[in-house]
């Protein structure tokens, strides 16, 4: 009987932990989605990235030592999920098929140019620009997310914008 009670308690505790964790991610879910959308440009893929990031976050939840850093931590996970997906796309679709896919989605020329420029950019520059321009974050906030000094972020922003100017 005691065993049964103990098992029930464990189950309850697990459910409570999951619910609490869900609530904490739910507070950030739209931001996660917006970041994923800026990288992946597809609603379905962005939703999948949110799902994958929630999965990874659950697995790694005990490694988050400071709960106040949850937002930065989740953003980092989402970005990693997006980069994995972009790499997978590169492997899955030869260049000519990418062209076809993009054409099919009726995007503006400016948008296609921007996407291509981002694709050619070093990931670190891309992260800095995405977080500043698409999420409105300050250099200090970006530094916290990417675990780099603020000065480094400012350099990445400068270099990234230079690269964009050259590409566009």
């Amino acid at each position, binding site marked *: 009987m005691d*065993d049964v009670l103990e*098992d029930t308690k*464990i189950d309850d505790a697990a459910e409570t932990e*999951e619910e609490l*964790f*869900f609530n904490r*991610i*739910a507070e950030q*879910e*739209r931001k996660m*989605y*917006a970041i994923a*959308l*800026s990288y992946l440009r597809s*609603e379905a893929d962005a*939703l*999948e990235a*949110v*799902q*994958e*990031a*929630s*999965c*990874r*976050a*659950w*697995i*790694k939840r*005990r*490694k988050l030592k400071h709960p106040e850093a949850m937002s930065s931590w989740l953003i980092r996970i989402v970005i*990693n999920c997006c*980069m*994995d997906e972009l*790499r997978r796309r590169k492997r899955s679709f030869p260049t000519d098929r990418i062209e076809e896919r993009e054409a099919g989605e009726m995007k503006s020329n*400016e*948008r296609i140019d*921007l996407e291509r420029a981002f694709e050619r950019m*070093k*990931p*670190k520059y891309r992260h800095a*620009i995405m977080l500043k*321009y*698409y999420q409105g974050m300050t250099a200090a906030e970006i530094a916290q997310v*990417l*675990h780099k000094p603020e000065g480094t972020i400012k350099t990445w922003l400068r270099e990234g*914008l*230079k690269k*964009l*100017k050259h590409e*566009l």
Partner: protein
Amino acid sequence: MTESKEKNLRQDADANHRQAAEMSRSKLDSAVRKGIGQGRIRARRRNVFYASGGALVVAAMLLMTFALLKPAGEFGPDSEISARQDWGEFEVFREAAEGDQRLIHALDHGEVRPSNVSERQKEYTATLQGIAADSRSMFLLYSVKNDSDRPIVISEKFESDNEGPGASSSSSGNDEVGPGQVGYRVLTVVLNPDTDSWQNAALNLVLTSNEAKAVFSSSMKYRTEIELPFELDRSLLAAKERVWQEDPAASITIEGQRFYIVRTVATPIGTYVDIAYDEANTKKVFGVIRPRLTVERNGNIEELILSGSYSTDASGMSESLQFAGVVPEDTDSVAFAIDGISALDPDKLELTIDTEKMQVLKAPDSSVTVESAGDEYAEGYIALKRSGKHLNGMADNVLLDSVFEDGDGVEHEIEYTNSKGQMSYSSTEANGEESTTWDYFYIGAEKWPQPLTFTIENYPSPIRQAIKIQLY
């Protein structure tokens, strides 16, 4: 950047923002819930991996050292005694049981329950002949009769409706059965202690004709799948078990690093000690060195040795130590003894490698080198070679976390699939007190930005201090 280009960038960002704002809350909630659900399952699979990788590696390496210490007693594992026992209908499993002291003990003491669930498909008859189980592990003894005119290869797994019922499994016996012959095999499953019951439990067998086109084909047309259902009631199994649990839990502290003896579970087929490392420890404790149980009964003292260990949570802070042999009910006392712990400072848990130049850039000490294992295994494998002092009862292998970071700071995760799932393989050549260990890791064939940074999950770093405490 010109103003117009920056304007384009801001316009695109605004469009992105508007699009994100239109996504319904319910779809986002649903994605998060699905993700957490997948995480729960994947975390269990990860435990599975560490259970199988960690436990098997540790077991393999400890066997060698414990061979010299083999206890001979009436309730300790002893193959010489078992060789004299008559196993009756299970005598045919003698070869498959060889070397497995827990199974031999279970067969010697009549703990294997006859089952005789049988199923015939095409020209093959599979029979689950016996089951020995406690709430932590089970042995499934089965046979396959091959009435075809070609040899077949067997693969097997334990299935149940419950998520993650098995923490790990291994099998023994010949996996090839010739025409007209009967093959006898044993599947050993370490069960997840968090699972209450196993509904629709079954032994699932896949039989493949041993021809090249069949073995290498992914089509099921060359394969025959047979399912042998059976019942496993955890409450009945648990009723035969004795649990010792102190409140507060007994603890052992070595050089300021503490762990607790959470409980000891004695079953008819084995003995388990669950330990938990203190979250306040300043070092990462990988494990205890040469754990054993000293059992006193009627003036005789016997030692039960470790047969395997596995993490019981994803963070690696809890571990279940599995001992070969049982503790009889009329035992006078049981003590738990170790020779120390293996632990490292947190700032030494990083291993940084340039896998293009095959150079170790940062490691806990200078005993590790890296080389490509592409020729030995497949493209994308690397081998870590480590030489150093060998201690009885301490795992010499290096284990790494499945997530590693490339030179751009992007994380990658190794997928656990059957073909590439074993992230670490290990073999040790002991020469006196020195040993050399090779561990193989699949990092993928992609050209990652260098260097790669791994988190160390196990590294031999002994802190020696013999300690013994009374459990019962």
